[in-house]
């Protein structure tokens, strides 16, 4: 270890970590407010502070958009991937706060409201750390910080046995996955002799080009890592915890759980498989492609038989994991299809596969949290989450029904909504990478999904209302739903601009790789 690097560890460049630090201090401030503020003011002040904190972190991200640096001796990176993933996570955090505030406040047998916001902040912080990780240790610590906070969030209604049961399954399988992941990381470290992602990639590049001997253990390590992360993103056949955990958790928390931990899992996959184990792409892409196909088909097939809308969306979220993995399988460092991106004096090519995955994650945050927000809205008004509870919503409350229609149709992937472009870019990336069969699988799986998404719409408009809605005022939730519905249309119409951003930042990541491999 040379002197420069050691100095970097003792006096790091703190300004690179501003957004993450803001979220960290937000969590601490929330803890203090929870302890010292009078109970009556908790709802207003804590909600405002949370939203303000995440918004400030997004603003701080702006000063990082053209950075390509690392600090803390390579542990922390401020590159394109960090910026885009952080943007997704912080948007998801704001939307989750907006949709969950009133629901959690009225939840029976819950923990204090302040703890909810604190856990949310720590979960986001962990995910942000994974997004900016440059080292195996950082990936592991970040993903665990995020997961630990989410386990508690899943059990937030602590007097309800189903919530605890879901949380327990989530916890046990999550831990099991972490153990597999860390054992896989151990072998990666043992074979390559480093925990730094760039050095791992450099060593493996040497192995692939033949200057060093190839060890069969590396495939074993790769398998362990893929299985461990497969649990985290809920890919079939490692999805068993998903429906139960999603069903048991408070509804807005489910929306959060389907986006933030998934984004953290994909961040870990991007950092680990693409940046660290990228040279082994030819070994892992087929595995990912097969898992993606299984995940898409299985998720959509099982979702068809669900009467409970929350469970249906749980299986639909499994299916969407599959679509995202298609983007990952289309990663190909030598494809030459991408656009040239220049950053901080270095130029490299973006990768269409990674771009489509990033775009999909971004779109998914707005669509899925929105769908769960409408279920929350219905639950507020004294109905449950069975399909029958949505009957006649089109007559009793046209606006809510309209919003739900937008989210369902967007999840299904109909133009010109956000969800369509997400799927479109994934399919294009798969075709570019010569994975035509995978692109066909995406189309077939989407066709399958039309049935259960449209069934919700049909029930809302063509069934007679079963019961009266209770009058309840939820201004923040209404604003959140309106925001997401508008975003689905607007970001769909301006999808080129968003895609350009995703493309720029996926290119920025390749720049970082190119610099490192020199």
């Amino acid at each position: 270890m040379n002197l420069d690097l050691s100095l970097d560890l003792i006096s790091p460049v703190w300004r690179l970590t501003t957004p993450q630090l803001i979220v960290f201090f937000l969590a601490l401030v929330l803890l203090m407010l929870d302890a010292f503020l009078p109970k009556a003011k908790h709802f207003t002040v804590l909600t405002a502070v949370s939203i303000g904190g995440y918004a400030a972190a997004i603003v701080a991200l702006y000063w990082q958009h053209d950075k390509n640096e690392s600090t803390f001796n390579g542990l922390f990176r401020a590159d394109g991937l960090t910026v885009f993933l952080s943007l997704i996570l912080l948007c998801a955090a704001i939307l989750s706060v907006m949709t969950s505030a009133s629901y959690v406040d009225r939840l029976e047998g819950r923990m204090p409201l302040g703890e909810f916001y604190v856990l949310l902040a720590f979960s986001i912080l962990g995910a942000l750390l994974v997004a900016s990780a440059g080292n195996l240790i950082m990936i592991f610590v970040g993903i665990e910080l995020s997961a630990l906070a989410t386990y508690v969030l899943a059990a937030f209604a602590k007097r309800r046995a189903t919530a605890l049961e879901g949380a327990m399954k989530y916890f046990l399988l999550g831990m099991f996955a972490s153990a597999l992941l860390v054992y896989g990381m151990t072998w990666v470290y043992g074979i390559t002799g480093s925990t730094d992602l760039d050095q791992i990639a450099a060593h493996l590049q040497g192995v692939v080009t033949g200057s060093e001997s190839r060890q069969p253990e590396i495939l074993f390590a790769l398998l362990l890592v893929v299985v461990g992360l497969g649990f985290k993103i809920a890919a079939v056949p490692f999805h068993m915890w998903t429906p139960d955990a999603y069903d048991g958790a408070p509804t807005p928390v489910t929306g959060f759980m389907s986006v933030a931990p998934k984004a953290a899992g994909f961040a870990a996959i991007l950092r680990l498989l693409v940046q660290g184990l990228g040279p082994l792409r030819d070994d892992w892409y087929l595995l990912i492609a097969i898992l993606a196909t299984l995940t898409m088909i299985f998720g959509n097939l099982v979702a068809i038989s669900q009467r409970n809308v929350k469970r249906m969306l749980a299986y639909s979220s499994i299916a969407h994991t599959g679509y995202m993995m298609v983007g990952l399988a289309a990663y190909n460092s030598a494809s030459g299809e991408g656009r040239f991106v220049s950053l901080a004096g270095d130029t490299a090519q973006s990768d269409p596969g990674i771009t489509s995955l990033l775009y999909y994650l971004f779109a998914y945050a707005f669509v899925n949290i929105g769908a769960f927000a409408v279920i929350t809205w219905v639950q507020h008004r004294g109905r449950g989450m069975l399909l029958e509870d949505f009957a006649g919503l089109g007559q009793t409350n046209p606006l809510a029904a309209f919003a739900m229609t937008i989210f369902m149709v967007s999840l299904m992937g109909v133009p010109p909504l956000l969800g369509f472009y997400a799927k479109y870019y994934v399919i294009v990336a798969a075709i570019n990478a010569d994975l035509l069969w995978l692109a066909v699988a995406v189309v077939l799986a989407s066709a399958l999904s039309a049935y259960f998404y449209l069934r919700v719409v049909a029930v809302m408009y063509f069934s007679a209302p079963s019961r009266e809605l209770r009058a309840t005022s939820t201004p923040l939730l209404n604003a959140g739903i309106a925001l997401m519905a508008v975003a689905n249309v607007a970001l769909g119409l301006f999808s080129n601009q968003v895609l350009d951003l995703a493309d720029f930042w996926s290119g920025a990541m390749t720049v970082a790789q190119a610099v490192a491999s020199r």
Partner: protein
Amino acid sequence: MGELGVEHFLSLSAALFIIGMMGVLIRRNILIIFMCVELMLTAANISLIAFGWQMHSLDGQVFVLFTIAIAAAEAAVGLAIILALSRRVHTVDVAEIHELRD
């Protein structure tokens, strides 16, 4: 008997890992499953130390410190969830906890 080499530690670690994994997959008691997961994490720690020792690098040992800290935090969260659950349903057998079903 020859000297202790890195392969001895790796074999020990692999054995512990497999015992832990089998335990998670076979046993029905939540607490035993939980202990088996801890065993798997410990197995990973042993191989991290062994690799670090073999390569004369400190990275592996630093990694172990973080893994131990995370395992401790996980025990706190996990036991809290298990405790709250066993108070509600009066059992720690996963086969008997099945309110959530398709």
